[in-house]
């Protein structure tokens, strides 16, 4: 179990039940409430790929201190069915409360409930019935019960409800408030006391609650994106919904295409027309996009592609997480061409790397991948609002009307970048081509050996330019540490959390997050590993893809590795255990 921060007030709540009960929405209401009450929050949603039934759960970590990830333990379990109790028994902390409806099941008959657990029976269905509400309001009664058990002021919830239902008929808000109040009173009326004193607190600065997709979506809007194309695929679908919702106000074309092949080809077409264009998907969809991804490379099209990994291959585990597409992102497509792959580790990264991705794509005239995963895409954290003053737009070298004398779309240059004229500019005749081509884009001479070499070398020179432009690795922790951990992507979050815990145990670790995974920052990684006392790589895949890049590009290896490929993100508990074990 995770050690509690002695300075912090920290409570972990889990809501579980069948799909279709509105569990995530209820959980997010709770997260918003505590964030507004001055706490930091981090949520983790687990759900199967179905609409009704199965088992969904939403875990919310609430803390008075800065937190970096989810944790495993549960202090309050809201069990909307009997399975929830049985499935999460081993996560319960000592004295943990189980809030449940005694009309659903008899908790005495669930095997293994510890004696120390505090059963909090709340007749959720009766409450809803008496309030004249609809079944889904059980959630609201349960949220009221959570606050009742904690002894937290109910008006934080009632205000949130009133706000949420302000645009609906007044009785809806009234019914919800009635459910919340009744749930609250029932939970006050039991024998076991809540062991922590948790009250609204003052906090410096505002917070927003965003997941990784929302962060990336906000950044793409800020960056002036004009076209988004996608085919629904978990965990990227919410980004499609986000853009669709805001398309009208922000004047963007959003297209749910017939398949991912169309999506990728469309964004290449959009980029050809000079529009900032993006698509996003998961591994299966990206597999379909691969040919057109190569088209973006050879045609030198500025496209941004979100690749949010879930466990593969094929359909795999649709709603779970993994970091197994690193090599896929780096190598996808036949032939060779320059590309940039950025791997955000948290929401802040997702925002800032996404607007930078549009600039890199434009300046380099080549595709840029944002490599994320379900853990980052799906889960919200309370963070300070994004600093939008950092957002810049750099469209690269553009030729405009009157500058077209001698224009050649694929002019061979020292940097490899050919200044481009967007179609429509008078006199800028050009063919943007999937075939190898000459400087003007014509394929007729593309098979000439000299032309091929000149164009291929020109494109690949952009990789040298990319190395000077891409975000460098990020470092966390002291220069001198017991263990140096190399990682990429969302694993940053639980490892930073574990590092914080280990520091209290006088174990120091430092972390290098490979932010730009391609071009691979071999020099920085070599230097980091070279000066370390001991080294480890933590990555969410079976084969050790980041490790293989280190072996390949740094001609070195690490002392220890930790892998995970069961669809779950690393937990800080697991990371802490691993580090303590390898350090003996």
């Amino acid at each position, binding site marked *: 179990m995770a050690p509690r921060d002695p300075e912090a007030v920290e409570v972990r709540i889990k809501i579980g039940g069948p799909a279709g009960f509105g569990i995530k929405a209820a959980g997010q209401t709770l997260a918003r409430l505590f964030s507004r009450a001055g706490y930091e929050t981090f949520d983790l949603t687990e759900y199967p790929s179905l609409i009704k039934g199965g088992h969904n759960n939403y875990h919310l970590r609430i803390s008075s201190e800065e937190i970096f990830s989810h944790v495993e333990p549960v202090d309050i379990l809201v069990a909307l069915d009997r399975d929830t109790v049985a499935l999460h028994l081993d996560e319960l902390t000592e004295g943990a409360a189980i809030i449940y409806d005694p009309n659903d099941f008899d908790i005495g008959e669930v095997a293994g409930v510890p004696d120390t657990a505090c059963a909090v029976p709340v007749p959720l269905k009766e409450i809803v019935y008496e309030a004249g509400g609809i079944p889904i309001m059980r959630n609201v009664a349960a949220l009221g019960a959570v606050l009742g058990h904690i002894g937290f002021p109910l008006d934080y919830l009632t205000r949130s409800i009133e706000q949420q239902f302000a645009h609906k008929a007044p009785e809806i808000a009234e019914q919800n408030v009635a459910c919340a109040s009744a749930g609250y009173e029932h939970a006050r009326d039991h024998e076991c006391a809540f062991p922590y004193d948790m009250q609204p607190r003052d906090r410096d600065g505002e917070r927003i609650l965003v997941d990784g997709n929302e962060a990336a979506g906000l950044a793409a*809007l800020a960056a002036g994106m004009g076209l988004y194309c996608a085919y629904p695929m978990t965990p990227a679908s919410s980004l499609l919904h986000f853009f669709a919702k805001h398309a009208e106000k922000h004047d963007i074309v959003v297209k749910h295409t017939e398949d991912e*092949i169309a*999506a990728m080809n469309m964004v290449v077409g959009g980029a050809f027309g000079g*529009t900032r264009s993006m698509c996003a998907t998961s591994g299966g969809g990206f597999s379909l996009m691969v040919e057109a991804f190569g088209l973006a490379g050879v045609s030198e099209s500025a496209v941004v592609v979100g690749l949010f990994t879930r466990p593969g291959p094929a359909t795999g585990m649709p709603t779970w997480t993994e970091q197994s597409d690193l090599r896929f992102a780096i190598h996808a497509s036949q032939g060779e061409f320059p590309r940039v792959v950025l791997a955000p580790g948290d929401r802040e990264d997702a925002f800032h790397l996404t607007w930078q991705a549009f600039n890199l794509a434009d300046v380099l005239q080549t595709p840029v991948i944002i490599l994320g995963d379900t853990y980052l895409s799906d889960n919200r954290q309370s963070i300070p*609002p994004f600093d939008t003053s950092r957002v810049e737009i750099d469209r690269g070298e553009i030729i405009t009307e009157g500058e077209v004398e001698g224009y050649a779309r694929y002019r061979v240059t020292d940097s490899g970048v050919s200044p481009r004229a967007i179609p429509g500019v008078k006199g800028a005749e050009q063919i943007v081509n*999937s075939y190898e081509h000459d400087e003007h884009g014509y394929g007729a001479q593309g098979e000439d050996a000299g032309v091929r070499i000149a164009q291929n070398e020109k494109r690949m020179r952009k990789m040298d330019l990319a190395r000077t432009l891409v975000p460098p690795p990020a470092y966390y922790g002291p220069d001198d540490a017991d263990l140096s951990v190399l990682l990429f992507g969302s694993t940053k979050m639980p490892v930073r959390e574990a590092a914080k815990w280990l520091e209290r145990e006088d174990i120091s670790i430092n972390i290098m997050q490979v932010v730009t995974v391609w071009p691979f920052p071999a020099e920085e990684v070599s230097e980091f590993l070279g000066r370390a006392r001991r080294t480890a790589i933590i990555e969410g895949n079976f084969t050790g893809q980041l490790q293989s890049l280190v072996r390949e590009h740094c001609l070195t290896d690490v002392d220890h590795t930790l892998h995970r490929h069961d669809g779950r993100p690393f937990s800080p508990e697991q990371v802490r255990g691993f580090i303590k074990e390898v350090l003996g």
Partner: protein
Amino acid sequence: MPEVKEYTTPHKPTWCPGCGNFGMWEALKRALSQLDLDFNEFSVVWGIGCHGNGADFLRTQGFHALHGRSLPVASALSLTRPDLKVIVEMGDGDGYGLGMGHFIHSVRRNIDMTCIAHNNQIYGLTTGQASPTTEHLMRTVSTPGGVLEEPVNPLGLALAQGATFVARGFAGDIPHLTELYKQAIGHEGFALIDVFQPCVTWNKLNTFSWFRERVYNLEDEGHDPSDRRAAFELSLTTFHEMTCTPDECRVPIGVFYRDDEVPTYNEDATGAGDPGYHKATKPRDISDLIAAFG
């Protein structure tokens, strides 16, 4: 008005002597000239195939896309560049084989573009395999026992999906084809012109003389292009016996169906009213949106 010859590039066509693509090339240049479209006012997107080699021969600001994928590239261009006339050139293998999904969906969206299909009923560039429009039972290198499938009926499919402009041309009648192109480019919405353009090297059945004996102009026979049912009936002339005589299988050319009242996808889609590059001149203000996450 640019002259017809100005729409050529320094590259000499590499099509076989007598190839149907020459007639289509000539007709398009004439149509562009007569519509007075300057080289920066339209954009042509090609797929891969013999037709696609035409990307080197037509003066434009265009895109030579992947095999089967010209329509999505062109769709995006149409939706993000309302200031450009967008024209797709695709092949029968390219557009009705690999690209069939895109074809059907482009039709039902009524995206504003002109789609010219170079239908030679054979794979030319890959040396003579059966295409989706090859006649039933015709022998090719990939079907030595004869094609077992019925050919794709592109006009019928387009009509079934609510196409707003459906026409068929013949590469052997350049003046007629020029007029079809002009009408299609002038149509607001998705305009399909399926053009029979004989492959003189690989298709020994559907030759110029085969077509000349069979084609007739719909206008001459009083077809009403606003009659969708009649258009669909006509589209069924795609299917016939390989050995049919000119009397048994007549091939109609001209406008099968046209409806100019249907709104285009472009009119109703968000963000499609203004060139997309205008939107990335400075960072968008998203402060309200960020605040909504508080």
